[in-house]
């Protein structure tokens, strides 16, 4: 009986997920106007988003619920990383059984994913690593453990400016490395770790090139496509992804020579805040449909994933592991830390360097860290005379009309501001 109910739930969910995916990709044709041919690869990965290729081969799978888990360590153990974060409304509703009503949609969707795919994941997941970044992720640890998964809480400091925090986090990462070795049965050797760091760095290099294409005036890539490319990174093999991005970069370079741009006269927007995640890319899609073009972002499901890289002074494990730890902590602009100064500085610098016309700051209902930082960000932006729109949303499709009005009003106000100058 129970088995039948689960089967029925899974089938219904699969249908809904397919619908959500289809909706996002509606109207995009790789090779068509504004959409490079190279995007076809990423649309395919997006379509298979809930069946990541990594689960197919026999390697142990390490699930993570935040970008703070160093990817390099997982790769060095020859394990497959699986990102549980997602933007599916269907999975969010499945996960809301475990959490209070006002809880963060992302955490609900994460739990939803675990609970719905429990049987499939049960024998494949060697470990679920949950960093204690924000309150909601931290308190969801015990809910995840209900599913009889081995959960490892990765301790993240709540400050990143002090020496103590640096030491705390380095120790935390070292312990994670030891745990991963134990769980996967593979030792993290210098060679394997150096190779993993190199692969991720190459991905980072290609990402930076792609960023330049998106930031170009006029842009060669829409924000929507960038989000799809980066979301693919979360569920694809790193080297395969890097190669696909390299191909896309070549094609975009060619488009640049021939003058084929995407969104020429559209107001240039920077999107920041709670991360838009596949398949729920509602905000970037609607923002661009309202006439804006996203030329940059400051979210952890896009640029923040690969902007920074690991640098180590000495090519040995005793230096590589702290170097990896530092890369994940120091440049991090997540609002979970006590100071939001780095984030504000980055936002303002990006606006000036990239000639951004306006900022859209989104937060999920229930995401207090992002909402609480709004005030300081608003001050800083007002002083710098940068227009900003704050929106609060979640995964449900119910507020589309309201979002459209706000985005259109914002884009219109930017257009008239530009005309008056």
């Amino acid at each position, binding site marked *: 009986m129970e088995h039948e109910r689960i089967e029925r739930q899974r089938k219904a969910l699969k249908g809904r997920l397919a619908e959500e995916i289809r909706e996002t990709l509606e109207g995009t044709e790789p090779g068509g106007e504004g959409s490079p041919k190279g995007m076809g690869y990423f649309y395919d990965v997006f379509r298979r988003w809930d069946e990541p290729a990594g689960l197919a081969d026999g390697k142990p799978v390490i699930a993570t619920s935040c970008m703070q888990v160093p990817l390099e360590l997982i790769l060095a153990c020859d394990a497959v990383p699986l990102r549980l974060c997602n933007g599916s409304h269907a999975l969010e509703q499945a996960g809301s059984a475990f959490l209070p009503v006002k809880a963060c949609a992302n955490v609900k969707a994460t739990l939803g994913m675990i609970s719905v795919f429990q049987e499939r994941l049960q024998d494949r997941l060697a470990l679920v690593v949950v960093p204690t970044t924000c309150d909601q992720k931290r308190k969801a640890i015990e809910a995840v453990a209900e599913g009889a998964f081995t959960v490892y809480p990765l301790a993240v400091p709540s400050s990143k400016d002090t020496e103590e925090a640096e030491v705390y986090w380095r120790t935390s990462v070292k312990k994670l490395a030891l745990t991963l070795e134990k769980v996967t049965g593979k030792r993290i050797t210098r060679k394997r770790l150096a190779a993993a760091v190199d692969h991720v760095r190459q991905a980072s*290099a290609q990402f930076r090139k792609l960023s330049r294409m998106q930031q170009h005036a006029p842009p060669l890539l829409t924000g929507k496509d960038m989000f799809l490319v980066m979301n693919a990174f979360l569920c694809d093999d790193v080297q395969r992804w890097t190669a696909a991005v390299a191909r896309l970069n070549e094609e975009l370079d060619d488009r640049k020579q021939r003058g084929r741009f995407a969104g020429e006269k559209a107001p240039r927007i920077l999107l920041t805040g709670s991360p838009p995640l596949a398949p729920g890319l509602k905000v970037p899609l609607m923002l661009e449909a309202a006439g804006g073009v996203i030329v940059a972002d400051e979210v952890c499901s896009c640029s923040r994933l690969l902007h*920074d890289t690991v*640098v180590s002074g000495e090519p040995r494990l005793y230096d590589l592991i702290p170097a990896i730890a530092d890369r994940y902590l*120091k440049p991090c602009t997540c609002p979970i830390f006590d100071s939001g100064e780095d984030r504000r500085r980055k936002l303002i610098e990006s606006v000036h360097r990239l000639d951004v016309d306006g900022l859209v700051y989104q937060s999920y209902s229930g995401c207090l860290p992002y909402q609480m930082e709004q005030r300081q960000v608003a001050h800083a932006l007002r002083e710098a005379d940068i227009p900003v729109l704050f929106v609060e949303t979640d995964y449900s499709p119910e507020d589309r009309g309201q979002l459209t009005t706000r985005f259109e009003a914002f884009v219109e106000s930017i257009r008239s501001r530009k005309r008056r100058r």
Partner: protein
Amino acid sequence: MKKIKRLLYTADIDRFRFYVQIFCFGLLLYGGWLGLNLGIHLPAFACPFCSGACGTCYLFPLQHQANMSLRQMAGGRGIGLVSGLGGFILSFIFLNKSWCGFICPLGALQDWISRVRVRAGIRYGSYSKGTFRRLKKIKYLLLILLVLLPLGMSNSFFGLPRLSHDFATPFCMVCPGRTVLPLFSGDAGQAVVDFSSKTKLVLTALGMMSTGLFFVGAFVKRRFFCLFCPMSALQYLFSKAGMVRMTKDGAKCTRCGNCYRVCDMGIREIAESVDRKNIVRDDCMMCFKCVAACPEEQCLKVSFLGATLYSATEEGFFNRASREKTSGA
């Protein structure tokens, strides 16, 4: 022009520095045999105790010149001190603190020892923030002492008797350069304890201890000695006038800390400060490893009289990183 700049910015400056250090080491320790003389105002440890020395470290004449009665100093003989200092400043500001990073033989020696350590797979040591802050003050103490002690030989301070002649060049007695550098021309004569007087005994014993400490330290920490170097302290007093400058555009900084990670001296400020433009500190040896490790376009820059010589670029960073695999510097 743009192509030249691109080529320059993607260059591996550390490799370049390695060769410059070898050249300068050879020049400063053996150049005298070729009849070359670079003067007595050198802002680096070109030790005169080496038989082939091609110039003299300025601290040597400084200590000698400080051995002067104050009356004489005011009476016109002090002009020697002033001109000596002037010569030092002129030599120094040309290259700013990159004398330490590119030219100083003791610096080069420490870098070579570090390379051996890395080859052997021995991990490096580093100071905590508090320890670093306290230890760096020692160099100023040594600088003050190396001027005061010789001064105390010709003057009587606070009614105390004048110091004995054995206190001439007190710093040279404890400097590891004096014992170590002559070894490279086969002269082990400086590496001794001198029993001829109590003062000499203490000073040379300290000298031997500091030599030992120098080697052990260099094997454990990158550029161990440089944190305590009084030459560095003296240089820093005039660093603001340096023609070579290293600047930071704080707005572009993501505080990733790469610069701090690769810094041999362990200077945190390079990563933490986002307000100051001139980022050279008293411990900085201007080796520019930080500039090479910075992935943010134009965040860190090296300039000579305003013209940019070397800059952090995204392309340069990734090129270097892929060439060296795992290190960005």
